[in-house]
């Protein structure tokens, strides 16, 4: 069965500290992987995708196929990064098109 694990419900850091939000997945096939973010009172929005290898708002995520992980990182957290973050494995080349969400990690960045 497709499964995604975000082990931390809450991650609390001070401004300027490094941040790593963990995500591990168990999937048949090679899924595409996404991170979504939900700021307070806003809709869920795409943060980044592994296929584009981009850096959005200073966040990066490296896909480690050996460890089946897709951890989200930022070297220096900002207060405006406080939000709910969801790891979401999605489509595979075999035609599995659904996006499945992890339990989410709430990031709280304190001044």
């Amino acid at each position, binding site marked *: 069965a497709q499964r995604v694990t975000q082990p931390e419900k809450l991650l609390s850091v001070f401004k300027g500290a490094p941040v790593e939000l963990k995500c591990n997945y168990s999937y048949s096939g090679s899924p595409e992987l996404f991170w979504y973010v939900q700021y307070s009172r806003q809709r869920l929005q795409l943060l980044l995708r592994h*296929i584009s290898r981009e850096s959005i708002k200073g966040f990066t995520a490296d896909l480690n196929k050996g460890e089946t992980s897709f951890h989200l990182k930022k070297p220096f957290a900002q207060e405006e990064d406080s939000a709910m973050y969801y790891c979401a494995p999605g489509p595979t080349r075999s035609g599995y098109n659904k*996006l*499945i969400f992890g339990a989410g990690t709430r990031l709280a960045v304190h001044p």
Partner: protein
Amino acid sequence: SAVISQKPSRDICQRGTSLTIQCQVDSQVTMMFWYRQQPGQSLTLIATANQGSEATYESGFVIDKFPISRPNLTFSTLTVSNMSPEDSSIYLCSAQAGTGASPNYGYTFGSGTRLTVV
């Protein structure tokens, strides 16, 4: 990327009644999905809304309880039938936009419908 308008944004309903939620996308999309987000929890996929055919439901969700329509490539509805307080939740629609490595590829979401059943 695709923009989704979802309505109503919230509603309070009596148990035993039904509510239909609508999602309109500003461009044609291949895939549309419906999720439920119960208080304090993550998103759970209810079903994939297929254009021109019956929706594909996830385990634990059935058509009689959550009938879905998808009459064209830009619109879908989800009905929550015979509601009980346990159905109180946020319901979200989603659309897959773009393809493959295109810059706008991803899944966009509606703003959600907050349903309270009393």
